């Protein structure tokens, strides 16, 4: 194969694929309970879901081999920091280590950030939604880019346009994360913050990641309505033998530890050092790698995900 042939092949591969038609599984599976995938008797299940380490590696490689994603993370951070400075925020800069974090750990950060920036004012309650929207925009962009990169090998303007369609889904995922976190927080207050209550709170974080992991990728890859996307994300999460809960836990726990342990430990100051920038960019690239990993895992199983069962037909006369 000549070099020009390879280039021609690459161009063919690089051509934006456009929106995929919704995938359809061979037959609609019967409904299952919420936790069937966790508590059902374990057998040998042949899952089309990629292995966990393969997913991690693919997500990481997708991010660091895509200049556009690298640029979005770096530029997104400086833009968010400058915007926060404009709101009168003085730090700690380390809070931005969770700028690209997934709903759950990221939602927790948004709550803290709104309290820090607008603490003691009525705006604090509403500003959390603004922070959720910013996070949704960043996740949308990274997810759309990851999907296009994985599908076609390049990133084009399609990702930017497509991210606008992903945005409502990512915002809804963030709102679900906020709801889950509130419930988990209330439960933890009732059960004791340091004992079982803390476990419940952590479970809320993991559940938020588990439920929403596939949603942005579904929205980026297929033309579906918001409710359909969220339902499909839920069905992906429950796929037997997928290891989705493990993957969600492996992401949520370190992400929360970094946010809770590092992000709030920094000092006040508006001119971050080179070391602070390096840590912040590095950690957010890991969050972006998680987004790419979720996208990769969804694309791998998309043809095998059940469609929503058709509504029960009305009885005729």
């Amino acid at each position: 194969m000549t070099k020009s042939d390879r280039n021609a092949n690459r161009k063919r591969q690089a051509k934006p694929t456009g929106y995929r038609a919704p995938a359809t599984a061979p037959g609609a599976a019967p409904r299952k309970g919420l936790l069937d995938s966790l508590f059902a008797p374990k057998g040998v299940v042949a899952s089309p879901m990629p292995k966990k380490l393969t997913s991690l590696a693919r997500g990481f490689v997708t991010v660091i081999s895509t200049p556009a994603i690298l640029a979005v993370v770096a530029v997104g951070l400086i833009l968010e920091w400058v915007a926060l400075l404009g709101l009168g925020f003085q730090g700690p800069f380390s809070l931005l280590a969770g700028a690209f974090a997934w709903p759950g750990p990221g939602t927790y950060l948004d709550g803290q950030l709104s309290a820090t920036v607008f603490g003691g004012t009525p705006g604090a309650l509403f500003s959390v939604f603004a922070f959720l929207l910013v996070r949704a925009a960043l996740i949308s962009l990274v997810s759309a880019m990851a999907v296009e990169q994985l599908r076609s090998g390049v990133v084009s303007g399609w990702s930017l346009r497509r991210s606008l369609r992903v945005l409502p889904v990512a915002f809804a995922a963030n709102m679900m994360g906020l709801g889950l976190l509130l419930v988990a927080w209330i439960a933890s207050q009732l059960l004791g913050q340091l004992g079982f209550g803390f476990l419940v709170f952590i479970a809320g974080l993991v559940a938020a990641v588990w439920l929403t992991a596939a949603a942005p990728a579904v929205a980026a890859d297929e033309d579906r309505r918001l409710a359909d996307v969220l339902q499909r994300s839920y069905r992906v999460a429950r796929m037997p033998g997928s290891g989705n809960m493990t993957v969600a836990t492996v992401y949520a726990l370190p992400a929360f530890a970094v946010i809770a342990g590092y992000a709030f430990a920094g000092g006040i100051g508006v001119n971050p050092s080179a070391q602070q920038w390096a840590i912040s960019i590095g950690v957010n690239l890991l969050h972006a790698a998680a987004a790419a990993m979720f996208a990769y895992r969804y694309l791998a199983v998309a043809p095998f995900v059940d469609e929503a069962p058709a509504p029960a037909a009305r009885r005729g006369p």
Partner: protein
Amino acid sequence: MRPLRAALRMPVVLAVLLGVWIPGTALAGDWSQFQADAEHSGVAGGPAPPYRTAWETPVPPAGPQERFGLSAPIIVDGLAVATGPEAVVAVDASSGEVAWSHPRELGPSVPAAVAGSGGSRTLLYTEGWGEGPILPGSSSTPAASATPAASPSPGAAGGQDEAAFEGPSRLVAVTWPDREPLWIVDLPQVSRTGVTVVGDLAYVGTNDGSVTAVEVDTGSERWAVDVGQGTEQAIAATGELVLVSLRGSGTEAASLVALSAVDGSESWRYEPAAASLIASPAAVDASAAYVAFSDGTVHAVDLAAGTERWSVPLNSAAPWAPPALADGRVYVLDVAGQLYALDAVTGERSWDHPLNTDVFHPAPVVVGDAVLVGTFTGSVLAFDRDSGDVIWRTDFGAGSVRAIAADERTVVVVRGGAGSGASGLVTDPDGALIAERSPTIVQPLFLLGTWALVSLVLCGLLYQLGRLLVTKLGVAQFADPHEAMQDEEEGP
């Protein structure tokens, strides 16, 4: 600004020259009570930075388990006086030599005060700790003092017998500087407020929420009221009002209550909209009281009406120490070591300077054109009042800085922990000032340059690694039955 400051100092200068004592202000040139005066202005006409350490006097921690150090000092007649758990200690502010140590019953280390003028002055302090402090490793430590009682005055105005002292605490008056007993007044609960003096009245509060006004000359109780919530912070006062910071609880929020200096009746009670557990001691100027709350806000409260003038958020809480007031500015220090200069009228921030180090106890102190701050890690820093730059700093090494006070010649620093004791700072004519800008001032070139450099290097290296890994891993392949189906439908 300088002419204005000079004008404001004029009454004090005149008072010194004429030998006149102005009620509600510090004794001229002295720092006669907590934060200089009853208003807690925290202002001294002391020596200007740069400083050198003139002396260091170790005073080991004492009391149960030897855990308790010295209180915030006062400086009168060249003597720096601080209250330890079992003695009131006076140190010569020019040499650092211990001038005397006056024993007291075990009690919290809270500031004493000197009242009166000329040859008739009175040293006032509280003593007694009820059941004693709760300490690690012991459920309760009554800890009877090994030292004799501080108030050997059975025949004095208070009429209490030393051996009969069984109450939780008491206010003690002795002559200054000879420490001859004058009178003793029993208090209903342990007192942590220290003593505040305005004119011929001394005010003291207790943990259970009682506030007592005592006539300095006779020890007679002028009035005593129950403010409903416990008070542990220093009481501020003017000629007309007594301002008490009240502790919050599970059911009640922290608040600031103003009592009439005449009869103790409640003039107003200020409770911020957002509930807090702790209110700092108040600082007062002619028209407003300034108080910080543990929710990280500082408030200006109108003295006449008790209504809020302004409220501004801080980056951290500042619940332990009062703000300092000078020339229409309010200087607040939060527990993360950030010093704020706020406009007293509007609350607008003139500047701020974060140190990013813990600061728990010391209040800011204004000395000339500088604001002095001490840290938990044993440093003392001077900030320029106009720019907010750090213009001088020193590190004492061991021990946290608990309080700073100043008279015209010496800045006295009281430290706790491993370096427990007192130190004196005097102007160093050979020293040099520095100029450290606040890290909250945006430096656009540095900000963008650092970001761009790190982004390019880090992302460039990662991209190279990514290309290498893609070569090893190959492109991702996905099963896609749709495309196959579409191909079949399109047909040849």
